[in-house]
């Protein structure tokens, strides 16, 4: 590198003046808006002039590559040596897995040091004179373009396309129809055409041979007595009919996702809607827990304001107004579940939901 001398603007063979470009040629006369400043003078680096500094840079780069090798070796050793269950205290994180930490750090150091070494090499030893490369024209010459067009047309003629239009039309038809199955899959996966399933939950009495369905604690699946529900209490409830699905171990989550109910007791005088009071027992009311917006579980009950809040998009339902929406993107009130007390004193649902639970869909009102 020592033969490199400090260069001045315009001197380097690699430099091209902005004045000599296409602008001047196309407009005939040159208008210099500003003086081309050229490139700044090339300043030599320490390693360019001093062989000792260059050797030091070489050693530094080699050290970084060496550290990378060390990191890779540590990874391989740690992979076999560190037991899976070993843990240690990592400041700021807490108890961390030793294997994860060592493997991550060694692999990280290994790849980081390759990068740092390469950058250091480039910055100290590789040539750093700035160069300007001219862009060349990308379009082919008119002759070559004419040749390409001729090749395509002659190919079509040889294949007898212009003479046999039947082939052309049937090919276009085949290719066009081929897109239909692909589009059909997308349209078909938008949802079931039979929405009847969405209108039923396992709260429907038909799921229990027409008998009233007991309200059960989730996840314990134990029945709830009226007096268990004290003022301000919240119970997360599943129907008695879910037990069958739990026992069989099939479709538990599908049924749970539609049947989730929240049971709350508040002062009956606070409930402003007669129907909401009638469908509950002494201020104990049950509502579907599935948000009517996009179906998250509405579980955040504020005991003092009697608001039910959905954690996903902050839809807020007012329990004193039959769970109508008072804030947020939901459009319908939460469906209420009509409950009573059976002869044994347990809370039961005497009918299923009178409307589909969860997000609205087009055919809901049909």
């Amino acid at each position: 590198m020592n033969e490199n001398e400090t260069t001045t603007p315009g001197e380097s063979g690699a430099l091209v003046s902005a004045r000599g470009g296409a602008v001047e040629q196309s407009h005939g006369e040159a208008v210099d808006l500003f003086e081309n400043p050229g490139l700044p003078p090339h300043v030599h680096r320490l390693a360019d002039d001093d062989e000792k500094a260059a050797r030091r840079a070489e050693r530094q780069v080699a050290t970084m590559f060496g550290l990378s090798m060390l990191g890779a070796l540590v990874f391989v050793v740690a992979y076999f040596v560190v037991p899976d269950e070993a843990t240690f205290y990592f400041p700021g994180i807490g108890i961390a897995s030793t294997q994860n930490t060592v493997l991550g750090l060694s692999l990280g150091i290994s790849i980081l040091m390759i990068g740092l070494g390469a950058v250091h090499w480039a910055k100290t030893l590789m040539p750093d004179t700035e160069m300007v490369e001219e862009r060349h024209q990308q379009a082919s010459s008119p002759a070559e373009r004419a040749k390409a067009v001729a090749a395509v047309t002659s190919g079509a003629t040889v294949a007898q396309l212009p003479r046999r239009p039947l082939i052309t039309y049937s090919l276009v038809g085949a290719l066009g129809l081929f897109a239909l199955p692909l589009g059909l899959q997308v349209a078909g996966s938008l949802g079931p055409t039979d929405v009847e399933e969405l209108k039923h939950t396992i709260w429907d009495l038909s799921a229990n041979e027409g008998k009233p369905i007991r309200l059960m604690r989730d996840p314990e699946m134990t029945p709830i007595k009226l007096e268990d529900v004290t003022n301000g209490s919240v119970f997360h409830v599943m129907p008695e009919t879910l037990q069958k699905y739990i026992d069989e171990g099939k479709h538990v989550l599908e049924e749970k996702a539609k049947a989730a109910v929240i049971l709350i007791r508040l002062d009956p005088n606070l409930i402003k809607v007669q129907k909401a009071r009638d469908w509950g027992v002494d201020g104990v009311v049950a509502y579907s827990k599935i948000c009517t917006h996009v179906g998250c579980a509405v579980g955040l009950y504020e005991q003092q304001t009697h608001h039910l809040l959905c954690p996903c998009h902050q839809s807020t339902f007012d329990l004193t107004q039959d769970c109508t929406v008072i804030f947020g993107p939901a459009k319908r009130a939460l469906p209420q579940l009509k409950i009573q007390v059976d002869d044994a004193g347990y809370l039961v649902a005497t009918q299923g939901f009178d409307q589909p639970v969860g997000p609205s869909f087009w055919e809901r009102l049909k």
Partner: protein
Amino acid sequence: MNALAARRRHPAAIAVLLLLGLLVTGGAYSFFAPKDANAAPALSADAVQDGKNLFIANCATCHGVNAEGTKSGPSLVGVGAASVDFQVSTGRMPLAGPNVQAPVNKVKFDETEIAALAAFVASLGPGPGIPEEKWTTVIEPGTPENNRAIATGGEIYRVNCAMCHNFAGAGGALTRGKYAPALDEATPRQIYEAMVTGPQSMPVFNDRNISPEGKQQVISYLAAQQSQTNVGGFSLGNLGPVSEGLFAWVFGLGILIAGSVWLGKKAA
């Protein structure tokens, strides 16, 4: 010192200084932050009388001389000893001033005084008492039986508590500035009392909703959850996309920018 002075204009100096400042502040906070004690209070025979005196001096302004409640504070008849113990031992009461929600604060009374206050309020009407110690003892993981109990606690927690208090007990926002607090600072007894009494926005989970065994399992789940190994590295408060996104934007992009500045700079 000269070497330090020479490097004070280095581009990394501000970052190093910031990091140092953060470290010192954080360290000092964790050193000086109040630690809460949890010892069984000793009740004296005239605790109720002591409690009444304390009540009149500290609580009667808002709750009324006979705890009948005023415009600024609810009636305390029938709230029970558990409610008093929870509110006072977490420093939520006495409340410094009107607010959307009483925040956790410095505890202003000692064990005996809290017990006396609780005894006085309990004497006003029946309400949930201070939980038995056997239900507030944390079940330690280890045996299959204990592990099963903790897992059941996790199931109960996710159905009943996680929607407000976050899956990892990190707390979360409610409406209009109200919030569900983080649970890592609360003692087992305070968690139990909060479930039984339903303080502020929280609903009540009485012993017939979640049995005492179930409550103990929930408490044990929270304890086990906090002491478990962080296999994923930094949990960033377990707050989900908000804290993780912020971290990625600030530190991820920061490192990328710093790296490209360094790459673009000429070597000396």
